[in-house]
């Protein structure tokens, strides 16, 4: 398959590195508004042509698959152009800035018989896959509840909170946190299904140009409940996932290789605690060593899920089998994202109420 990328920044590098290792895939072109960025990426990854106008690239190259790795505010128009040029589209999250735009893209993809895939890489990390495997094997029993908490310092002056040039994601409802909501929502969807109701609490804990730096959401879904959270203040950086089943519970840090399980055992309670503790300790030690070795010996690191997702996507596109992320899946995840962004329930916090990000006057702690 002949692939092309629109956007040649940091996340594009991960896509390019992965694609170069996939059998039967050739990256034939890439495009960026900056000629230096485009040329540098092409030179570095030995891509034979580069462009600064995506329409010219689509017209001249006619790629089979287009990866859209630009800032989210540009995704919709670029994805639409790529679909209309006859390409399958793999788009970074969030796929669009509004649900209406996503519905239009989904309709276009269906009409043209093309694939539309949003990057939910954390569903394909080793930890998420191992938990899913045990759920499918019946070890968990029914899943009752899932918690996903992303702790990420986004308040540094060089990133989202750069006061000199406003970051494009700040124009999203919810600001920089909205950039991460698809990760949280996709995990909730994976373990407890499409949502029925959602409530959200948005707050600003520290002074910065970000509209919000804290988020909590509670979700009632078809198969259970979920608590989703983002914190720019809780440190160190981590992406905690906890899945609670009727017979087993799992805890994972998706930024590392750590995943541990607690299970019901047919022994006296003190022995259950001991055995679970010993097993947990062994898993944590093994994960710590494996994470360190991974840093020394290379590999995708925290992007392992992206590599797995892309490998599965290309395999499915090549064989015509079911995609790892379907359009129905994307719509369900983004309906939850939209519900979390639009929750208008006033919630009382320690220093004042906060409203959904549609109401940007929210509290300033």
């Amino acid at each position, binding site marked *: 398959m002949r692939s092309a990328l629109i956007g040649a*920044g*940091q996340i594009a*590098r991960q896509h390019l590195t992965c694609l170069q290792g996939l059998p039967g895939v050739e990256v034939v072109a890439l495009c960026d508004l*900056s*000629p*230096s*960025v485009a040329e*540098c990426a092409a*030179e*570095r990854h*030995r891509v034979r042509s580069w462009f600064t106008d995506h329409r010219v690239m689509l017209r001249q190259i006619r790629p089979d698959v287009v990866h859209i790795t630009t800032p989210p505010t540009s995704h919709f128009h670029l994805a639409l152009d790529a679909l209309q040029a006859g390409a399958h589209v793999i788009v970074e999250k969030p796929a669009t800035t509004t649900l209406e735009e996503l519905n239009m893209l989904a309709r276009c993809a269906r009409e043209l018989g093309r694939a539309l895939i949003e990057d939910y890489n954390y569903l394909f990390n080793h930890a998420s896959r191992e938990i899913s495997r045990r759920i499918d094997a019946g070890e968990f029993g029914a899943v009752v509840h899932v918690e996903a908490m992303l702790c990420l310092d986004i308040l*540094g*002056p*060089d*990133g989202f909170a*750069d*006061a*000199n*040039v406003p970051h494009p994601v700040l124009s999203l409802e919810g600001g920089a946190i909205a950039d991460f909501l698809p990760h949280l929502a996709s995990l909730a969807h994976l373990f407890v299904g499409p949502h029925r109701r959602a409530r959200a609490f948005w707050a600003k804990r520290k002074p910065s140009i970000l509209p919000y730096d804290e988020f909590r959401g509670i979700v009632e879904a078809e198969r259970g409940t979920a608590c989703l959270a983002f914190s720019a203040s809780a440190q160190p950086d981590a992406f905690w996932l906890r899945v609670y089943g009727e017979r087993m519970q799992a805890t994972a840090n998706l930024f590392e290789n750590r995943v541990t399980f607690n299970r019901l055992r047919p022994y006296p309670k003190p022995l259950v605690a001991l055995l679970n503790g010993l097993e947990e300790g062994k898993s944590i030690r093994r994960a710590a060593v494996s994470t360190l070795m991974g*840093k*020394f*010996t*290379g*590999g995708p*690191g925290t992007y392992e899920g992206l590599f797995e997702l892309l490998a599965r996507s290309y395999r499915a596109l090549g064989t015509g089998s079911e995609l790892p992320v379907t359009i129905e899946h994307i719509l369900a995840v983004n309906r939850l994202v939209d519900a979390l962004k639009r929750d208008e329930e006033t919630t009382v916090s320690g220093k004042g109420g906060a409203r959904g990000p549609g109401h940007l006057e929210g509290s300033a702690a």
Partner: protein
Amino acid sequence: MKVLVTGANGFLGRHVVSALLARGIEVRALVRPAASVDDLGWPTSLDLFRADLRSSRDLEQAFDGVDVLVHLAAAVTGGAGEDAQFAATVVGTEHLLGAMARTACTRVVLASSFSVYDWSSIRGVLDEASPLEPIPDLYARDGYAIAKSWQERVVRRLACEHGWDLTVLRPGFIWGRDHAYLAALGIQISTFHLVIGPLSRMPMTYVENCADVFALAAIDPRARGQTLNVVDSEGERIWSFLGEYLRGTGQRGVRIPIAYRFAHLVVRLAFSTVFRRNLRLPQILIPCRFEARLKPLRYSNRRAHEILGWQPQLDFRECVRRTFANDTATRCDPHARVQARVSNQSLLSRPSSVP
């Protein structure tokens, strides 16, 4: 003559502004919108232009009445990652020079870097004739080296395309107050300093000496079309400079010498075996980056001396004194520092230029 200085509030930029003002040159200082300039001691009459080069808006206005661009702006550290460093350094340069192409300004002085050289292949003396890092080896280097190489590439292309007069200055380690712990000093673990190649020399230029070269290059027509390395001397030895640093900052530290050849061999072996040529390792564990920091070479300012008649006006002892002196008045006012330097010339010992 009016000179536009980008990155004007940076470590080098503030001294370049002072050096130009001290020569009676009119300066327009370009700083980022959120940058604070209150403690720089600039005269209130200084022409300040606020813009972020990553955003291409309004940059043409910065060139109104400007004869020379001194382009210093670059992301020195990779705090937000290699791509953010590339955007701040290279995309910013694209925007700036794109705007310049629509104005009457035709003269550029670019701050490049020693990091653009191919350190792995150079033996003996590193000078302006030394080879640059080739493709694709460049992409094994760190984000700063990639960004500075690309910045120079972009500027040279545009200068050629538009017929501009270009001077490329490549400083070594620029040091001074609050910037004296250099990457070549080794690895610090608690109070222990692992000094790799203790007798190796570092290509160093004290910030005020370096700023002098930029000011000189901006106004001296002999600089046109030239590429010049900027170092104060053949280089200070790592061991002795670290000693100065520890004494100057009052830190307790134990220096542990490690032979360069031994460390280099270990790094090369480990990189190609245990670490499987992983480029996400700490810088010191990647051979080409190890060499770019620590390789024992000699350096020369002969060409800057021949072309511009430049000699560093402050000798090493005076630079050390200024770097570590507890002099709050000098610390807060770099403009006053230039004045003080001019008045202190006769007190200084012989300049340490390399013949």
